């Protein structure tokens, strides 16, 4: 009872501390991106043919750019928090950052979630199977694949896939989204998930090996439990623990990986808009997307950390 309470108390402190890290991180991200945009050379409306001063002033007033910077920052944050409004795009007048999010986000979310789930399931199964049959051909296969996949980041995987399945075999379309047909999803998902799948497989394999050598498994064996019960009832949970701590980095990798996927496959996800706005120097869009994706990443990492601490009481709180 006392121990449980103590643990609960520590847990609470840990959550508070974790939030205490997340909030300044969010603020730093916000201020840094806002400040970078402000110091960027050339205002959003400087063009080759200079606008008449009155017109420029009117436009700036419309977008609130004549206000002092702290006021702009404040309005911006209030807009995001109260109305989920990330502001207008300065390059395309008919389109706000919200429109871009509405258009690109579902696409990224679709192939991102599929990749994420696939990486965890396939990687986990591969790693566990390799550990259970250690030193079998399956194990060597799994280890070989994981080493190979680590040096094949998405921007290497994607062209190789296109080369094989589009140019040589002609089985799959080389790009496009087409409303999310499975033919269009398959290659982006493989390209995005392979290296994370490999890392998860490697993690699961080594942690499963460690768990299988531990005393409580030996006891279970001595009791005469069948292999299946030992693995699924006793070994599975502790073996999967390290994978949880890898979910954060994997998530970050998927988000940034979408830049590449959208660039190569032309899937039109949020990465496409991000990179495009970087080329067009459309600072408002860049900032909006940075803040959106950045805060998603920060929050996700926080949740994963708390989850991990909650599941595994052994870690130092």
């Amino acid at each position, binding site marked *: 009872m006392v121990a449980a309470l103590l643990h609960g108390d520590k847990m609470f402190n840990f959550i508070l501390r974790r939030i205490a*890290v*997340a909030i*300044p*991180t969010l603020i*730093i*991200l916000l201020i*840094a*991106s806002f400040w*970078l*945009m402000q*110091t*960027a*050379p050339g205002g959003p409306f400087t063009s080759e043919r200079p606008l008449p001063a009155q017109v420029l002033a009117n436009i700036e007033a419309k977008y609130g750019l004549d206000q002092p910077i702290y006021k702009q920052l404040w309005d911006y944050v209030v807009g995001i928090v109260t109305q989920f409004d990330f502001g207008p795009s300065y390059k395309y007048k008919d389109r706000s950052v919200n429109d871009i999010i509405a258009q690109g986000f579902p696409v990224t979310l679709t192939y991102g979630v599929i990749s994420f789930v696939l990486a965890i399931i396939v990687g986990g199964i591969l790693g566990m199977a390799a550990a259970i049959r250690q030193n079998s051909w399956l194990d060597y296969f799994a280890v070989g694949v994981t*080493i190979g996949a*680590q*040096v*094949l*980041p998405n*921007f*290497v995987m*994607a*062209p190789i896939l*296109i*080369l094989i399945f589009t*140019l040589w075999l002609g089985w799959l379309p080389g790009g496009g989204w087409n409303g999310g047909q499975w033919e269009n999803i398959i290659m982006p998902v493989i390209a995005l998930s392979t290296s994370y799948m490999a890392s998860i497989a490697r993690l699961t394999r080594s942690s499963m090996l460690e768990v299988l050598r531990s005393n409580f498994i030996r006891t279970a064996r001595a009791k005469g439990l069948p292999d299946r019960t030992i693995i699924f009832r006793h070994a599975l949970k502790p073996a999967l623990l390290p994978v949880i701590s890898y979910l954060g980095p994997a998530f*970050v990798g998927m*988000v*940034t990986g979408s*830049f*590449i996927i959208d*660039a*190569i496959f032309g899937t039109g996800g949020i990465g496409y808009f*991000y*990179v495009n706005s*970087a*080329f067009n*120097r459309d*600072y408002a869009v*860049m900032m909006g997307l*940075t803040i959106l*994706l*950045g805060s998603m*990443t*920060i929050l996700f*990492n*926080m949740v994963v950390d708390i989850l991990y601490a909650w599941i595994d009481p052994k870690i130092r709180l």
Partner: protein
Amino acid sequence: MTDKLAQPFTQAKTAEMADRMAQEDVQGRSPWTDARRRFMANKAAMTSVLVLLLVFIFSIFGHSLSVFDIETIDWDVLGNVKEAGRPSLENGHFFGFDENGRDLYNRVVQGSRISLAVGVVGALVAVIVGTVYGATAGFIGGRTDSIMMRLVDIFMSIPYMFVLILLLVVAGRSITMIFVGIGLTAWLDMSRIVRGQTLSIKNREFVEAAVAIGVPTWQIIFRHIVPNLLGVVVVYATLLVPQMILTESFISFLGLGVQEPLTSWGALISEGVKSMNYGTLWQLAFPLGFFVVTIFCFFFIGDGLRDALDPKDR
């Protein structure tokens, strides 16, 4: 007792043994000698060292093998790269031409230079800043430590790829900005690892002895703590180099990194991908080959070093 034990040995045999022992004693076996021996026995790692050496030599001296440069356009080839731009030993364009009619061999040499430089410089910054920062935090401990490490926590949870891209867009795309941007984040992991190691070294007797005889803190950190961290630092730095190369390639692949006429592996791979449809596969194959082989080598060397320097961890 002793007599009985000594009896079976003849005088000569004892002398021989003593001799051998003395010899081994003279040779000495520091932990580093042991580690080197273990590393040399690792075939994958030794092969990787050799291959990597060749890649480095290629990137440093590669230009002198060719009479062409990275930006001259061959107008006879332009527009007909598929037929006229194949790799060929006869006309001296060993890797063929790129889509703009430029000599690919020299572009790959130059791209290797930048990619390797980013990897090595990034890892170097990580080693220097990360080691000093982590060792200081770990050794001083207390409030200083928790503030310093909390700061690292905060920096680490900023999704740095966004910040890097923002930085490159705002400050202008250039190789210098890539060095700065990558250097800014590279040391964070290292400082955490080093701090952890420092904490475990800090309470050993030799450090206590140093404190007891009044050695100043900075001297303890640099003379006693840092040399004992070297193993971990070396292993981690080797694994950091491919990460840096990957990051730079990622950025350059998107076109936000190095700018024409300069190039890097990422930019070359990106060009190769764009022209894949035209049947000029060598434009993808050469840079991709160098990239994959190099990353592989660094991983194997890192793995070998870890096995060699930390045999408990196997």
